[in-house]
């Protein structure tokens, strides 16, 4: 089939700048073919090459004694003792979800699950951090219901419990919702599979579903001119099939047990291209592909289409040729395609054949290691103006403004659509801080959380970046888990704008500082840039997914407040109201600076909590909505009233960091006070659980009334 000629428009449509195209010419010392152009564009686009972010990502702490494998593989790997490892990552699927919410979100979940089981880990937990436009926006309801159904539709059928996540609403996401999917899996630490190919002349095997035209050029192809060169315009959003993914999981895990797998890589963005290049590049080898053998769902597919297709539920593997028959039998058992589509080469070459024609012949190592890298200009985010006096508000009205908003209302409308208990190891389902899953067959548990406060990051990227990590740290400590490591999903606007790049740089510095101080290295992650519509950027949203370990049920905090329990506040503060949830929800104001995060206090207070689990009935971290919201959430969960001594706005709704709220009995409170004094941890008795009203100083309201609001506001707004 005749390939179209490379015109200037076509080059631009592949997302190349003039300089980048010159670089291609310099590498090849000739003009690329159309297929080669597609391959270059797939490898060099922002999504695959991290060309704007690489410089800064390198500054993040990624190492520690607990880290088995940091960033650069399909997912990060962390030691959890007893020869076991947790494998996890978070990744965005923002743009597809905005175009086609159900499939966009579903394939986001599918992609992250594959990243995990490609490494030999069985997925055991998932989370989803979702950001939508304001509830009143005409598109929001459709996006919320589509994304939530898509997440559930895929994860539920695949059979992984969804145990946590976030849902937020803000006008800055009106034209650009965010879907950040997290998955974690369990593997034996000595049975992990990597992507680096090894051995020359080894068979390269295609596994899983057939290739179709879906998702061709997902990220890089979008121009009217370009449509003339392809027979038919196809949607660029992929379609997910969780049933195939489930079979692919089982078949891969079975295959890995046979010793047939030398290396394996899932086909995600830029499918066959990216997976083949990555395996070759990491192994210092070349790859020859014969596209005639690629299992195809449609007829007449070109080399270009096959190389750029983003059809889901596919893997590429380098096979031990001695085990071919055994490997094939496993895939036949699961009714999946298994086809030898190429071999590894000794030379640095990426050779793509189709119908006996050479469609691409490129120096393989140049496709990834020499991909462009930019030091984008950036400007420091100007310091936020200090907060002018906050208006007075009755504290119960303040609480109602929070719990009546879909941002802080109870979100069971969302999480009840997710299977949170499949695999029968879920200790704590979504709704109360971190989700907790038992490590099957052991006493150990893993805790999962995902956090970020985008308002803070916009006002102060450095403190906001720190805060996202600190909040994740606190959510893990609040269930008794020892924080182990993090994955970051960095969602920002257009990096070519110095102020956006400044947000990115500031946030990275803050995240790095916090991860170092709290010993939670970043082991995997994903960057999503250009989240803008009509020049309006999203709020900078560096989502932090974090994992913690609970050694046994003795270390677990998962109870409820009991009648008569003391409300104890750990940590101190000045009543910081800048960028607070109260200002945003009650007054529509987003001014002031973000709260400062003192990492020493975070470490000290978190450690204190974990050292004293035995005397704690339940604990929660203080974040958006401060003391008032935390106390109310505990009261609602226990079905008990709560009385806080203070009625001061700043004390109730201030969002100072490094704080926790604890419920414990009288004797336990005394023990805690003594322990706190010894550790230099600020602690105060601030109220009591009991009765059936929520009382802040003199102001009060029946718990039942408030709970009814809290439990209906989400569905009311967007259901």
């Amino acid at each position: 089939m005749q390939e179209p000629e490379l015109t200037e428009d076509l080059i631009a449509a592949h997302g190349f700048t003039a300089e980048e195209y010159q670089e291609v010419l310099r590498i090849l010392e000739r003009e690329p073919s159309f297929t080669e152009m597609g391959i270059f564009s797939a490898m060099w686009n922002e999504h695959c090459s991290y060309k704007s972010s690489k410089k800064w990502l390198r500054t993040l702490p990624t190492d520690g004694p607990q880290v088995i494998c940091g960033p650069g593989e399909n997912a990060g790997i962390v030691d959890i003792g007893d020869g076991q490892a947790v494998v996890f990552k978070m990744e965005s699927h923002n743009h597809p979800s905005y175009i086609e919410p159900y499939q966009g979100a579903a394939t986001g979940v599918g992609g992250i699950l594959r990243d995990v089981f490609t490494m030999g880990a069985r997925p055991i937990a998932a989370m989803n951090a979702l950001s939508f436009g304001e509830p009143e926006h005409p598109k929001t309801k459709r996006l919320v219901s589509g994304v939530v159904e898509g997440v559930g539709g895929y994860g539920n059928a695949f059979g992984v419990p969804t145990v946590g996540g976030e849902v937020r609403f803000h006008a800055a996401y009106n034209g650009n919702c965010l879907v950040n999917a997290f998955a974690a899996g369990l593997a034996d630490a000595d049975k992990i599979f990597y992507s680096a190919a090894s051995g020359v002349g080894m068979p390269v095997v295609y596994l899983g579903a057939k290739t179709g035209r879906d998702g061709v050029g997902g990220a890089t192809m979008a121009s009217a001119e370009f449509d003339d060169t392809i027979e038919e315009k196809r949607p660029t959003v992929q379609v997910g099939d969780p049933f195939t993914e489930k079979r692919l999981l089982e078949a891969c895990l079975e295959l890995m047990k046979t010793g047939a797998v030398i290396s394996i890589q899932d086909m995600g963005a830029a499918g066959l291209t990216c997976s083949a290049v990555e395996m070759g590049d990491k192994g210092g080898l070349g790859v020859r592909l014969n596209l005639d053998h690629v299992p195809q769902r449609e007829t007449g597919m070109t080399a270009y289409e096959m190389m750029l297709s983003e059809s889901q539920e596919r893997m590429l593997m380098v096979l031990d040729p001695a085990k071919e028959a055994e490997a094939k039998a496993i895939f036949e058992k699961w009714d999946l395609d298994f086809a030898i589509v190429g071999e590894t080469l000794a030379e640095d070459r990426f050779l793509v054949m189709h119908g006996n024609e050479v469609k691409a012949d490129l120096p393989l190592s140049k496709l990834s290691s020499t991909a462009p890298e930019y030091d984008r200009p950036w400007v420091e985010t100007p310091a936020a103006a200090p907060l002018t006096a906050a208006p007075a508000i009755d504290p119960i009205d303040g609480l109602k403004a929070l719990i009546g908003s879909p941002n802080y209302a109870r979100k069971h409308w969302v999480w009840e659509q997710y299977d949170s208990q499949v695999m029968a190891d879920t200790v704590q389902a979504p709704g109360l801080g971190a989700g907790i899953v038992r490590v099957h067959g052991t006493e150990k548990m893993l805790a999962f959380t995902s956090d970020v406060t985008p308002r803070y990051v916009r006002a102060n990227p450095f403190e906001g970046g720190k805060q996202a990590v600190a909040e994740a740290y606190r959510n893990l400590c609040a269930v008794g888990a020892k924080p182990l490591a993090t994955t970051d999903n960095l969602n920002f606007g257009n990096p070519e704008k110095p102020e956006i790049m400044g947000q990115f740089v500031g946030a990275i510095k803050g995240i790095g500082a916090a991860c170092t101080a709290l010993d939670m290295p970043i082991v995997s992650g994903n960057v999503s840039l250009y989240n803008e519509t009509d020049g309006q950027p999203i709020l900078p949203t560096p989502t932090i997914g974090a994992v913690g370990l609970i050694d046994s049920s003795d270390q677990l905090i998962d109870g409820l407040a009991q009648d008569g329990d003391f409300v104890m506040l750990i940590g101190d503060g000045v009543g910081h109201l800048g960028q607070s949830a109260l200002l945003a929800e009650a007054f529509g104001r987003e001014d002031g600076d973000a709260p400062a995060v003192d990492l020493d206090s975070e470490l000290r207070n978190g450690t204190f909590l974990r050292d004293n689990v035995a005397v704690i009935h339940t604990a929660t971290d203080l974040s958006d909505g401060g003391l008032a919201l935390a106390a109310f959430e505990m009261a609602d969960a226990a079905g008990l009233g709560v009385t806080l001594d203070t009625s001061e706005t700043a004390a109730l709704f201030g969002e100072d960091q490094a704080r926790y709220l604890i419920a414990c009995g009288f004797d336990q409170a005394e023990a805690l006070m003594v322990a706190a004094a010894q550790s230099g941890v600020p602690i105060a008795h601030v109220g009591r659980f009991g009765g059936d009203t929520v009382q802040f100083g003199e102001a009060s309201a029946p718990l039942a009334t408030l709970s009814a609001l809290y439990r209906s506001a989400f569905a009311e707004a967007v259901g």
Partner: protein
Amino acid sequence: MKAAVLVFPGSNCDRDLSVSFERAGFDVDMVWHKETDLPRGVDIVGVPGGFSYGDYLRSGAIAARSPIIGALRAHVTKGGYAIGICNGFQVLTETGLLPGVLMRNAGLKFICKPAALDVATTASAFTERFDADTPVTIPVAHHDGNYVVTDDVLAELQDQDRIAFRYHEDLNGSVDRIAGVLSKNRKVLGMMPHPERAADPALGLSDGTALFNSIASVGVSA
């Protein structure tokens, strides 16, 4: 005592069910859907939850036509015990071993939450260890759990005391709030809630334990 758990390619509660059987003292064999025979000496067959063949058609419809179903049918015809949970219940109705069909939930959404159930009869090998007057909490997780039968069949189920569990409050639109039903010989149970997710005190829910202990205590081979 020996249990067999059927495994379809999209089953995802097969392990969970086998763990619960083992906990109650059963030896468990996992049986692949392409098999045509059950292992020798099987007392009870478990049809687990999940998405048997993707369930893009009617839930359980394709599974009901898979090779192993012949063996299941023979086992039941001979008076053997069987339990289908969630997708397994859907499969059992599609095979005709239990009456009725499971339609999309009335609210059209997937529902995952702990559900309060009334034990509607303790006169069965599956429920005899329950206390009829005490509601139990067992989680549900399904999209298609809205149980529908004709009026005649409903009357029959009621008259013959074959309704095993009812939702304490309407959950998904099921007729007569039915959450689980028994076969005519009371040896086949289908239910949407997942007792295997509530059979371990470490997870905070253990009301499902009574079901597995009931089956174990009657010595199902009897």
